[in-house]
């Protein structure tokens, strides 16, 4: 049916007036996407191409900008700090994406149940997402401080700690992940809520008649039917958290030592502190390649046997 509709919309060919109509048909359709393509070209595509170009130059904003071929990439691949930053980034991205893909499902399921004040809770749960990174960072630094943080103070009252959440090399990335979970889970929660509302209720009714109960329905109906949404959330979260910057920048400044030093943090530093734009953009290009590779892997393995 769909293909027949599409075919019927195609313009006629083979005659002079048909060619004119074909041209008009294409122009008319492309006109709709021109504004987007224009903005995309100016604000996305051109910077991407410019970054790619800059990565082959010793580009330091002021002064001469000699072409140096792959020298920036060579330096990067032989740079210990790049590998430290990449390791931390991969660790953070996978841990945070895993948390932000799974935890919001259960919160969305809970908030999808009918109860009084449900919308207030949805708002409250979503609210941290609208806070700026600096606000979240400052609040978390106060909360999680080792000596004077409120969390450690409360733990101390029950004889636990103090725990160096953001000052311990082993704990810092998990702590930043949990902070990010609190901050950002509103968005995947909304996506899941939208997905949940699309699952037909009669499937649950049928399952109920067959004797299925809470967890069984979640496991055998809700989660399988949410798989396309889960894949979407997993992919977007991974892409997003590979680009982590604000949390280490505001909360830990890359420390302790270099244990929360991430790729974008390093890129920012190279470009805006060392003024080495060429070197910084080489990092951006490599990170984009890595993100693309992981995204393709996700689609390859996560996209199979989707149940719509």
């Amino acid at each position, binding site marked *: 049916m769909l293909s027949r509709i599409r075919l019927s919309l195609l313009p006629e060919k083979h005659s002079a007036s048909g060619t004119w109509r074909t041209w008009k048909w294409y122009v008319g359709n492309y006109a709709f996407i021109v504004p987007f393509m224009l903005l995309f070209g100016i604000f996305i595509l051109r910077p991407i191409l410019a970054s790619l170009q800059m990565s082959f130059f010793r580009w*330091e*904003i*002021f*002064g001469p900008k000699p072409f140096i071929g792959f020298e920036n990439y060579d*330096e990067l691949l032989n740079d*210990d*700090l790049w590998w430290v930053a990449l390791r931390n980034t991969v660790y953070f991205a996978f841990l945070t994406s895993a948390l932000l893909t799974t935890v919001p499902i259960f919160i969305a399921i809970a908030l999808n149940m009918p109860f009084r*004040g449900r*919308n*207030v809770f*949805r*708002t*409250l749960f*979503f*609210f941290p997402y*609208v*806070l*700026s990174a600096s*606000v979240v960072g400052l609040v978390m630094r106060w909360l999680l*401080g*080792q*000596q*004077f943080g409120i969390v450690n103070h409360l733990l101390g009252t029950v004889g636990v700690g103090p725990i*160096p959440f*953001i*000052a*311990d*090399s082993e704990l810092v990335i998990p702590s930043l992940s949990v902070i990010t979970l609190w901050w950002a889970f509103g968005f995947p929660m909304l996506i899941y809520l939208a997905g949940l509302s699309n699952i037909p209720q009669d499937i649950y009714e049928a399952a109920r008649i067959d004797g299925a109960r809470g967890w069984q329905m979640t496991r055998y109906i809700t989660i399988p039917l949410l798989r396309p949404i889960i894949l979407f959330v997993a992919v977007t979260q991974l892409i997003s958290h590979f680009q982590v910057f604000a949390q280490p*920048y505001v909360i830990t*400044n890359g*420390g*302790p*030592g*270099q*244990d929360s030093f991430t790729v974008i943090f390093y890129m920012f*530093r190279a470009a*805006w*502190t*060392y*003024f*080495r734009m060429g070197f910084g953009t080489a990092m951006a290009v490599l990170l984009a390649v890595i993100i693309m590779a992981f995204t393709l892997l996700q689609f390859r393995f996560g996209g199979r046997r989707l149940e719509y």
Partner: protein
Amino acid sequence: MNNFRIVFVILLLLAATVGVQAQDDLVSEFGTGDIELLFWNGLTGPDGETMVGLVKAFTEENPDVSVRMERLNWTQQYFPKLLAGLAAGNPPDIFLMHEYEMTQFNTMGVLRDLSDMYSNNGGPIPIDDVSPAIIDSLTDPNGRIMGVPLDFHGYGEWHNCDLFDAAGVPCDTLATTRDEYLELAQRLTLDGNGNNALSDDFDADNIVQWGTSIFWYRPGFLTALAQNNMSWADDMGQALLEDQAIIDTMQWFQDLECVHSVAPPPAGFDRYRALSINMAIFNHGSWAWNFVSQNVENWMALPYPALGAEGNSAVWASAHVFYLPIQAEGDRLEASKRFLAYMSDAGLDWAHSGMPPARISQIENMDPEVYPSASVFGANLLENGVFDRQHRNWLEIEAQYADAMARAFESECEVSMADVFPEANARIQRILDRYK
């Protein structure tokens, strides 16, 4: 759904209000004059309030000028914004940095020559009244003086006298050697049973008062280098951080935590607040004055101790410096120069922020009753202050040794200085070679 909207809008407005309020606090406008100056600085702490007063006084004295002052965090916002402004050809009329950034920005060709601000070139600032060390640090290879110093700040030692009393040590005790410093820190470090770190019964797992701390690694590192007549590079462009003497010197500091238990693990340790509660000696800069005077009841400021070879009292020094962009011209340039001259003359007013002034006569005329810390630090810096070596990519070099020390100091004693300095040395050498 109504509930959703109402709660959401209330929360959003609340968040927006907090953000706008925070932003407003760091932007100030003074005067109504037709010549409008934009002044950027990184004075986001209490010293920024002192600067607010100075700018206000300047506009009152110069009614034809109005000034918009924007304060941004030094490390995280200031340089990206300044660089973007300079690159876009739209910089502030006046911007504040340090002396050690001069070479880097001057190499970019964005700074205006300010030699004509000094008396030897007919300017209003008597050049003989400015510390020669500061003038040297602001002079480029062509003999041009590229900035006007606001102050002459640096490293020193703050004591919490109540904590000294608790340990039975006079508050004005100042070590003159490393061994003396260690012993002093051991006397000041107390466990829950009241034993100090020299006692056989001392319980290192139950420390309630710390003798000292390791903080902001760069000034401590540069002071240690200066006191041992060393540097991170020589004049031939050779990085020197593999020098065993440098590694040993910094290892001594790490051992204060890892061997002697007189300093807490630095990562996450809030030294400012600890000074008012349980840390007796705070090695820190002159800029801590506002915090100390407001939060510590009985305190004392002393010169940084001589912990190097042969009682060398050298101490890391720095200066806040006014710079003008190269494209400055016309009325705004003239008004900017008036602003700089005013600020140079107002060094004693600025010293209320705790920063010793840049002018020698002002340092020498500081009343200890009025300037209890700035007078101490200023006199010591004038005699022993040593500025850091400059380089056209100083910011990148500084990050290498600072990162190396962070890796060691914040490793919970698992990484030593010998583990990190060779790598930092190689990285610095690569940077030096890049610009040879």
